[in-house]
């Protein structure tokens, strides 16, 4: 019974700091590993680093000790020392040496706590701030590039772009050839739609002739089967909708092909 109490005493009172530091460390680690949101991961990272700071500060704690600034009785620059210096000045001795730091005797140092862990933690805090700032900048970049900071959505998007990027040049060339053959075949099957789209697109996109041309060919590729006689007034938006929302519909090859035509440009931008 008594021993149980001793254990509780030791855990809750004497080593409470260390218990808290371990708990914080684990909370931080858990958040970093299992949270989906990148910002939550960063919060976990901050908790993780703070736990280590708590650990270092805890090991520097000393009972009945003060901050490591000379106490009056040890102080070479304080009032006591000044009096001594004045005395010395009167007797005409060198005063410079008196202002040098004083080595304390071991029993005198008992009254001060160890400054080193705190100093180390100042550095660690600076490093932590730099890491956090960099990580937030990365999050911003990811948000701008992929439109999300949720890891699962991000992974899907990254996988898709990776598959496109790491495609074999042979397969790319094959795709290109298939695209070309389809381009030559297309006007026969859907002459009407091309014409109509071209007509409707021109007034909308007439600012830039090359742009219009591209839009026409794109809508030409992605639309021919579904809306053969479509007189859609917004060919651009409709085609992009098809691309974005239904990647696995029968129109997938068409979408791929349209991506291929844009691929060289995109890669340059990346």
């Amino acid at each position, binding site marked *: 019974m008594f021993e149980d109490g001793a254990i509780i005493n030791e855990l809750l009172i004497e080593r409470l700091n260390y218990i808290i530091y371990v708990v914080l460390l684990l909370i931080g680690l858990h958040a970093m590993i299992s949270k989906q949101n990148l910002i939550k991961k960063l919060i976990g990272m901050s908790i993780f680093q703070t736990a280590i700071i708590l650990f270092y500060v805890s090991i520097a704690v000393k009972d009945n000790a003060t901050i490591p600034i000379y106490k009056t009785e040890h102080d070479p620059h304080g009032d006591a020392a000044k009096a001594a210096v004045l005395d010395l000045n009167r007797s005409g001795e060198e005063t410079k040496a008196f202002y040098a730091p004083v080595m304390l005797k071991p029993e005198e140092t008992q009254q001060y706590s160890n400054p080193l862990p705190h100093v180390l933690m100042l550095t660690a805090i600076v490093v932590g701030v730099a*890491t956090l700032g*960099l990580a937030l900048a990365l999050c911003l970049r990811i948000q*701008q590039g992929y439109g999300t900071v949720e890891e699962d959505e991000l992974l899907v998007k990254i996988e898709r772009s990776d598959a496109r990027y*790491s495609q074999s040049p*042979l397969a790319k060339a094959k795709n290109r050839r298939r695209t070309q053959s389809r381009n030559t075949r297309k006007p026969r099957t859907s002459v009407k739609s091309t014409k109509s789209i071209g007509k409707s697109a021109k007034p909308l996109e007439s600012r830039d002739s090359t742009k219009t041309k591209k839009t026409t060919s794109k809508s030409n590729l992605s639309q021919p089967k579904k809306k053969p006689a479509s007189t859609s007034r917004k060919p651009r938006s409709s085609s992009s909708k098809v691309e974005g929302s239904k990647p696995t519909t029968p129109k997938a090859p068409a979408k791929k092909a349209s991506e291929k035509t844009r691929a060289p440009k995109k890669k340059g931008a990346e």
Partner: protein
Amino acid sequence: MDNAIAWILLFPLIGSIACALLGMVNRKLCYPISVLSMVAATWASVETLFQAVASPTAEVSYIFGGWVLDLFPRGVGIEFRADLLGALIALVVVGVGLIVSMYAKLPVEKETPRKEALYYPLFLLQITGLAGIALTGDAFNLYVLIEVAALTGYGLIAIGSNRAAAATFNYLILGTIGASLYLLGVGYVYIKTGTLNMVGIQEVIATNGLHDSPTMQVAFVLIGLGILIKMAFFPFHAWLPNAYSSAPTTTSCLLAPLVTKVMIYVMIRMVLTVFGVEFSFESTLWSEFMPWLVVIAIVCAAVMALAQREIKKMLAYLIVAEVGYMVGGVWIYNYYGFIGSIFHIISDACMTLCLFLATGIILRACKTTHFDGLRGLFSKMPLTMIGFFVGGFSIIGLPPTCGFFSKWYLITGGMVAERWEYMVVLMFSTMIMVVLFFRLIERIHLAVSESGEDLGKGHGDLGLTKEQTTFEEAPLSMLIPLLLAASIVMIIGIYNQEVVDQIELFLAPFNLPKGTGH
């Protein structure tokens, strides 16, 4: 110059500040400044190595600010110590930095346009951090320099594409966990020994008999785990392949040869100089299970490298496998294993550099690093491909290159220590590397289609245009560093005995077993 050891760090540091300031005035100033400061740092590094060889204790010591008191002969402040190992690794770091900085001009202009004033300072700071890791004699200062190297590394990778930014985020999370665990371990060491000086810690452990202290055991586990995460040892390697393969060319050329190797140097430093051989191998169980983890690591990494279809990804997994080699060389606890491990740090840095430089040129010329894009490349750029082959042969371990000799010592170590599993797995991974590189060599040399029919010059049905197969060597500013790296690989191979002599001099005081360690 007496304080050449400090100048190794100061030259790149001053250079990076100068780049950042003058880069704002004119971006074109950055490249010459970075090359100049790297030349100066290389000179300082060579000077330090000669000083270390010449001095009777085989080490150079420099205490910053001259903070020495009679009570603390090891210094109150931060000490930089270059023993033979540290000086060698620093020379490798700075030398690789010099070659990459020469190479950087065109890739940086192309891949990160109008960001030179941001890129070169980070680049130089990265070298500052890595060289500092190799030279510092203070356990906490090591943490700071690890973070300097890591933070600049994140920046260097993420400055590229969005994909690189996403990969960097993972790297950042894992890297922070690793560095923080190291920091925690240093805290435990400090509680028990009351000093942060590496040699000081070693002395306290030896004089106070801290071999069985649970605090030191915990510290050892935390520091070891942190370093293993930072060096991308197999189960913790997840950050490496994506980060290195999506980084800008120059970044992967700089980081891939150095970061993991420098962390292995830190592990050797911890095992030998900080905790001591006796503590590391006899008071902990690590030498029992680490060789088996190494076996798993090498097999998995080699098989994953085999599954890749892109050179950059493949090389990234090769790095993970090579990390396994070096960690294994340490933990088989044998004299020859240590020689092999240290020599492999040097040779692996050179050959990985060689391969990544060549890959950068391939990427520039072919716009792809996919295996299929390499067909008929030898007729287009023979010199680049020779550089690539030298690196590849060194990774495989063919005799005139340095990779052969380091692998020779590693295998000897495995044999003498009767760690048969380690020996077998080295042979196994060598076989896999043979497959990897000869698969590439076949594609590069021969222009045949998938069905096997000869296509003459290689264009036509392959989807290669005529311009992809006409002779067009890489620009000289990229080709010369590559050939330099390739010749260094050969020269270290030919003069391997000189390097090994220095390593043996370094290892002599540690009394490592030359037979079985247990």
